[in-house]
C-alpha cells in the first residue's frame, strides 16, 4: 500500500506536466479546429465561433493545401526509401569485415545527424548556389550544366531531399548496423554451405532477418519526413512557385503569420491523420509481404 502511494508520487510530476502541456493542448487543438479562431479572437476571445467541420471543408477547396500535400507526399515517398537505402548500404559497408577504420567511419557518417538542421540548411543553400555552389561545380567536371537547384520548381524539392538524406541517413544506419550485428553467424554459414552467392545471401538471409527492424525504421522515418518544416522555411520560404510549401509550413503560415489558429489546427490534424494512415498501411504491407 505504502509502495503504491510512493509510486504515484514518483510519476505524478511527469504525468501532470504531460497532461497540462500535451494532453490538454491536443484536446484543445481538436476543439480549436472546429472554430473560426483568428486574429480578432486573439484580441478578444468573445469573437470565437463554433463552425463545425468548416475549416476542414475549406481546406479541401484551397489549392495551396493540395500543393502542400503533394509536396509533402513527394518528400515522404521519394525521401524515405532513398534515405533508408543509403542507411542500409552504409550499414552493410560498416558491418563488412573488410572495412578499415570502422570506428572513424561510423562517427564520420553519423556526424550530420547531430548538427543543427537550421544551420546546415543555411550551408546547403550556398552549396546549391547556381553559379558559385560546389555541387554545380562538381557536376561541371562531368560536363553537366548548372542546375538552379532552389530556384527551379522541378528541382527545389529534390534538392531538399538531397539535404535531408545527407542529414538523416546516419541515424537509421546505426540502428540497422545493430540489427545486422544481431543476425546469428550460423545463418550465413548455412547459406555459404548451400553455395549461395552474395546477392542470394543478402535477399534470403539478411533482408528477412532485418525485416522487423526495417519496418520500425521506415515507420519512424516516415513520421519524421511528414514533419518537414525547417528546410523550406530556411532555404526556399516555400518557393519557387509554392513548390516547397509543406503541410507544416502551411500550418505555420496559417497559424503564426496570419493568426488563423483555427485553420492551422485543422491542418495539424490532417497531418496527424495522414501519418496514422501511412504507418498503418506500412505495417499491413509488411505483414502481407512476409506471409
Amino acid at each position, binding site marked *: 500500500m505504502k*509502495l503504491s502511494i*510512493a*509510486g504515484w508520487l*514518483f*510519476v505524478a*510530476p*511527469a*504525468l501532470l*506536466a*504531460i497532461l497540462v*502541456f*500535451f494532453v490538454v*493542448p*491536443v484536446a*484543445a*487543438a481538436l476543439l*480549436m479546429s472546429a472554430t473560426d479562431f483568428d486574429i480578432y479572437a*486573439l484580441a478578444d476571445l468573445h469573437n470565437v465561433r463554433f463552425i463545425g467541420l468548416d475549416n476542414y471543408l475549406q481546406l479541401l477547396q484551397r489549392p495551396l493545401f493540395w500543393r502542400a500535400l503533394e509536396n509533402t507526399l513527394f518528400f515522404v515517398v521519394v525521401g524515405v526509401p532513398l534515405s533508408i537505402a543509403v542507411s542500409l548500404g*552504409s550499414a552493410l*559497408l560498416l558491418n563488412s569485415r*573488410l*572495412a*578499415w577504420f570502422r570506428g*572513424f567511419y561510423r562517427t*564520420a*557518417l553519423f*556526424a*550530420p545527424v*547531430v*548538427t*543543427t*538542421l*537550421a*544551420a*546546415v540548411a*543555411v550551408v546547403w*543553400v*550556398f552549396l546549391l548556389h547556381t553559379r*558559385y555552389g560546389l555541387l554545380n*561545380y562538381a557536376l561541371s567536371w562531368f560536363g553537366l550544366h548548372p542546375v538552379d537547384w532552389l530556384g527551379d520548381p522541378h528541382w527545389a524539392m529534390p534538392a531538399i531531399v538531397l539535404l535531408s538524406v*545527407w542529414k538523416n541517413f*546516419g541515424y537509421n544506419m*546505426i*540502428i540497422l548496423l545493430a540489427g545486422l550485428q544481431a543476425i546469428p553467424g550460423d545463418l550465413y554459414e548455412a547459406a555459404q554451405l548451400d553455395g549461395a552467392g552474395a546477392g542470394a545471401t543478402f535477399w534470403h538471409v539478411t533482408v528477412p532477418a532485418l525485416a522487423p527492424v526495417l519496418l*520500425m525504421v521506415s515507420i*519512424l522515418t516516415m513520421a519524421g519526413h511528414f*514533419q518537414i*518544416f*525547417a528546410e523550406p*522555411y*530556411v532555404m526556399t520560404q516555400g518557393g519557387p512557385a509554392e513548390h516547397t510549401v509543406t503541410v507544416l509550413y502551411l*500550418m505555420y503560415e496559417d497559424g*503564426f503569420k496570419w493568426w488563423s*489558429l483555427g485553420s*492551422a*489546427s485543422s491542418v*495539424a490534424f490532417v*497531418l*496527424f491523420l495522414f501519418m496514422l494512415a501511412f*504507418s498503418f498501411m506500412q505495417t499491413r504491407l509488411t505483414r502481407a509481404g512476409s506471409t
Partner: protein
Amino acid sequence: MRRPLSYLGVNIFLALAALATLFPLAWMVSASFMTAGEASTYPPPMLPHAATLANYRLLFAEHGIVRQAGNSLFISLLATGLSLSFNLSAGYAFAKLRFKGRERVFRLLLGALVVPAQVTMMPLFLMLKEMRLVNTYVGALVPWLASVFGIYLVRQYALTIPDEILEAARMDGAGELRIFVLVVLPLLKPIVVTLAVLTFLGSWNDFMWPLIVLTDHHVQTLPVALAALSREHVQDVELMMAGAVITVLPVLLLFLLLQRYYMQGLLVGSVKG
C-alpha cells in the same frame, strides 16, 4: 582472387561516403574564414586565400550573437535539468515501484507518441500568451518538462536493476525517496548521461517551437537567429558560415565527447515494440 577487389571496393565506398558527409561541414568552417565576397567567385575556392576572423568579429560586435549563444546555452541547460528531474523518477517508478494502474498508464503514455507535437503548438501558444509567457525562457522550456520518450528510456534501463538491492534497502528501513536518491540514481548514471546528452542536443537544435514562441531578438536561440539573419544577408556567404559554425560546433563537440552515451540512447529509444 575476389578478395583484394572487395577490400578495395568496400573501403573506397566508405571513404567516398565519409567525404560526402564531412565535406559540407569542412567547407562551412573554411568559408567562415574567407574575406567577404570570396566564396562568391568562380571556380569556388576550397580554402580561404588569407584566413580572417572578420566574420566572427562582425557577428559578435554587430549582430549580438553572444546574447543568442547565451540564450541557447541557458535554455538547453535548463531543458536538460528539467527533463532529468521529471523523467528519472517517473521512469524508475514505472519500472520498479508497484502501483495500481501502472501498466495501463504506461501504455497510454506510449500511445501518446503517435500524436505529432506540432498539433499542440496552437493551443500551447495561446495558453502561454494568456500567461504572458511568450518571448520568455519559460515559454521555450515548457515542451521539455517531461517526455514520454525520456520516461521510456529511463524505464528500459531501470528494469535491469535487481529487486534484491531495493528490498535490502527497504529492510534497512530506508524510505522510498532515500532509496531513489542514494541507491537508484548512482545505478542509473549511464542513462542519466544519455538522457542529458539527448535532451541538450535536442533543445539546442530545436527550431519550430522556438521560432514560434521567441520572436524577440533578445531571447532568440542561435538556430532561429541564424535563420532570420540568413534572410537579411543572402549575399553574405562568409558571415552566414561563421554563424553556422557557432551554432553547430558546440553540439558536434559535445557529441564527439559523449558519443557512447548518445548511441546507447539512440538504440534503446528505437527498439520500442
